[in-house]
């Protein structure tokens, strides 16, 4: 499969659903990808199975402030030198790149990088959605390390970083990113084909494209987008409602808050809420949990089914909230420890969304 203009538009829209409210505005990333394929031609999308076991595959992402990204747009060639250096450090050439997360701006950057560097992109990611921290990837669950990590800026600076732990990698990298001007292109979790096959979440780019295509086509033909979307992603409609209040606080750069939602139509008379920290984390009816992280909680516009980011939540918006089961890799002890509700500070146990729904909490 080749990724060109049409697929990029579809993946960007699909990524806004899998971003579960976070992941940053994909607009800049999308324009980067579009320009790159316009200049260099479509990108080859290859299957995880097609990566040789000993090949070197490295993800490409943006690290830093989204507010800087919209102002200081990347050069596009940051990785040319950085990948060469990483290759000679590891004694191998970079075979392909892939997205570290499926949601938001970082779903688009690897497409631009692949086109600019003439590399194929692997149809997989390390989250199956979006998460805020470096260790929140399935590779971490399989004991892979973020190092050697590469950082590159538009000026031509690049750094290969070897840290003793993923936490150290995060701390050292944050400081370098500031020095580089608040934003850098990064690559973490360099893997062999064998490691990728074991830990990656497969087929996520083609899946995003299918989701995006379905949303576009059903919106254009005015068919019931929400119902068809739920069927497609094997998700659950949690409730329909009107946002009645948004409580926000910004702490150490992260966007925390609660959205209060009054039920409408079949949910009239019920009160719901959604807790978010960049991404949507917990959906509740009164005190009863309907879905929680790492399952995906997506807020859609009631009429158009267009996914809504946490920044765009405001009083009066009418929404449908859906829950989608996360990848099985997250539903392990180590997975829940890494990205379960307790890690984000909520004193509840993780119960899969399909079990919670069986309990009949949502009509």
């Amino acid at each position, binding site marked *: 499969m080749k990724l060109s203009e049409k697929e990029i538009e579809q993946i960007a829209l699909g990524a806004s659903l899998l971003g579960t409210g976070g992941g940053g505005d994909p607009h800049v990333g999308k324009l980067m990808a579009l*320009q790159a394929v316009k200049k260099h031609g479509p990108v080859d999308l290859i299957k995880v199975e097609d990566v040789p076991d000993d090949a070197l595959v490295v993800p490409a992402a943006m690290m830093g402030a*989204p507010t800087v990204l919209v102002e200081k*747009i990347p050069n*596009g060639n940051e990785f040319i030198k950085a990948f060469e250096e990483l290759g000679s450090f590891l004694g191998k050439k970079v075979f392909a790149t892939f997205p570290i997360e499926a949601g938001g701006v970082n779903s688009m950057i690897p497409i631009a990088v692949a086109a600019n560097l003439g590399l194929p992109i692997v149809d997989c990611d390390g989250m199956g959605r979006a998460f805020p921290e470096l260790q929140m990837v399935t590779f971490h669950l399989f004991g892979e390390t973020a190092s050697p990590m590469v950082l590159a800026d538009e000026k031509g600076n690049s750094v290969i970083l070897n840290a003793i732990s993923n936490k150290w990698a995060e701390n050292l990298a944050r400081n370098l990113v500031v020095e580089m*001007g608040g934003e850098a292109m990064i690559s973490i979790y360099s893997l062999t084909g064998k490691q990728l096959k074991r830990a990656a979440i497969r087929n996520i780019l083609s899946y995003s494209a299918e989701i995006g295509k379905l949303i576009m086509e059903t919106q254009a033909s005015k068919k019931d987008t929400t119902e068809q979307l739920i069927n497609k992603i094997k998700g659950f409609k949690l409730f329909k409602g009107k946002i009645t209040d948004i409580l926000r606080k910004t702490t150490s750069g992260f966007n925390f808050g609660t959205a209060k939602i009054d039920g409408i139509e079949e949910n009239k008379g019920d009160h719901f809420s959604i807790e978010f920290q960049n991404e949507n984390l917990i959906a509740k009816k009164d005190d009863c949990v309907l879905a929680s992280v790492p399952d995906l909680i997506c807020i859609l516009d009631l009429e158009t089914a267009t996914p809504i980011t946490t920044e765009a939540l405001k009083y009066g918006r009418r929404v449908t909230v859906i829950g989608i089961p996360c990848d099985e890799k997250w539903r392990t002890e180590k997975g829940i420890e890494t990205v379960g509700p307790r890690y984000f500070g909520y004193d509840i146990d993780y119960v899969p969304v399909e079990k919670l729904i069986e309990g009949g909490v949502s009509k």
Partner: protein
Amino acid sequence: MSYRLGIDVGGTNTDAVIIDNDLKVINSVKTPTTEDVSTGIRKAIHLVLKDGDIDKESIKYSMLGTTHCTNAIVERKNLCKVGVIRLGKPATMAIEPMIDWPEDLSKAVSENFTIAHGGFEFDGREIVSLDEEEIKNFLDEVKDKVEAIAITGVFSPISNAQELRVKELVEEVMGNDISVSLSSEIGSLGLLERENAAILNASLSKVAKNISLSFKKALEEEGVLSSEIYLCQNDGTLMSLEHSLKYPILTIACGPTNSIRGAGYLSNLSNAIVLDVGGTTSDIGVIINSFPRESAVAVEIGGARTNFRMPDLISIALGGGTVVKEKDGKVVLGPESVGYKITEEALVFGGKTLTTTDIAVRLGMADIGDKNKVSNIDLNFANRVKDEMYNLILKYIDNMKLTNDNAPLILVGGGSILVPEKIEGISEVICPENHSVANAIGAAIAQISGQCEKVYSLLKISRDDAITEAREIAIKEAVDAGADPESIEIVEIEDIPLAYLPGNATRIKVKAAGNLKSA
């Protein structure tokens, strides 16, 4: 006594009012908007002066809110060819200027651009220095092909030094007459959107000259000789003609702003929701501290995404001329409308099309045309249509509110007949006198403003000191633009921490506004 003349050009009508020093309405008129816009303006001035019994010499201020610029961009007409300079290399190469513009717009405006070395980091460090030779070479190459220049530097809202230097270079190579738009003077953070606004602004140079000349001429020909002349901006304040030549894009969407401000003034409320019902659509806006709430999202103009200030509005396809149908037992409202042809096509005027106005007349909510012509409409059906209209309006009004508290609703424009006296979530519904010319009144009462928007590092300066500094800059800008220092008030303070950035970087925005210095 001295007077003000306010004119607002809308899609359907051009309205004019004369108000006195105490801002009391002396006379008002409505006349159809003409295709060239200027003829309609001239006619409105003529009519409002003819009927009003005042000395033309005593009109000391004339204000115009016009759709010239919006029309030029939407129709791709009379636009200048622009040379586009971005200061960003080696950053920003991944997205070229105008990449997502509709092709006909970029063709009409610019095929000449360069990304030159330059730009700043978020903390004010230079990414790289300017390469002046590189810029001069570009200017030499395009100087015979372009009529205006737009300059946009990375993080120029934080430091505009490079943009200013490049402007000097442009004047060296191309002379002082060429129009130069600096992005730092037009938009806020967000390179592509700010660049788009700067390019569109530059492309409007000819249109701006045309508005200025034709408005001046119309006033002179109608005998208004000793008036100061202003154009309305989309934030509800005024700019001098001289200023408007430099920043024509700031006039875009001043119409809805004027009607929101006019509504607030006429009903003596500084916080309310405003519903402006037209023939084809209705606009809902919000007035906060006497100014329209600004939109927080990117706004497209003619298909190009921009981020400069615009009033936060929802447009609904429901107006006095909206066509009413029944399909499969369901009421269908529009989206078609008979528009300005309502006086020919609506049933009450002897036409053949059932419109929302006919329903209002049938239910006794309005007395327009011949009510006998609608007496055979089934009452039950009419009530169902009414419910449908109310639900639609109610839903969008609720969308525009920011909290659950009840707020007053001001009705202006022509089709205020469509709105019930009581609405859920609304404390009272007010339909003030002169509501049909609220937009021209909004133009006439507009104030003079100044603004400061800067990113401060709160490690280097305390938040209070930063806000004080920004206030002083905004006030000085307002006074320089002609505001009476005594009347200046701070109408907006916004401080937004920049997410994921260390050093407590915060963007502080302050707006000050005051009355025109009295003549």
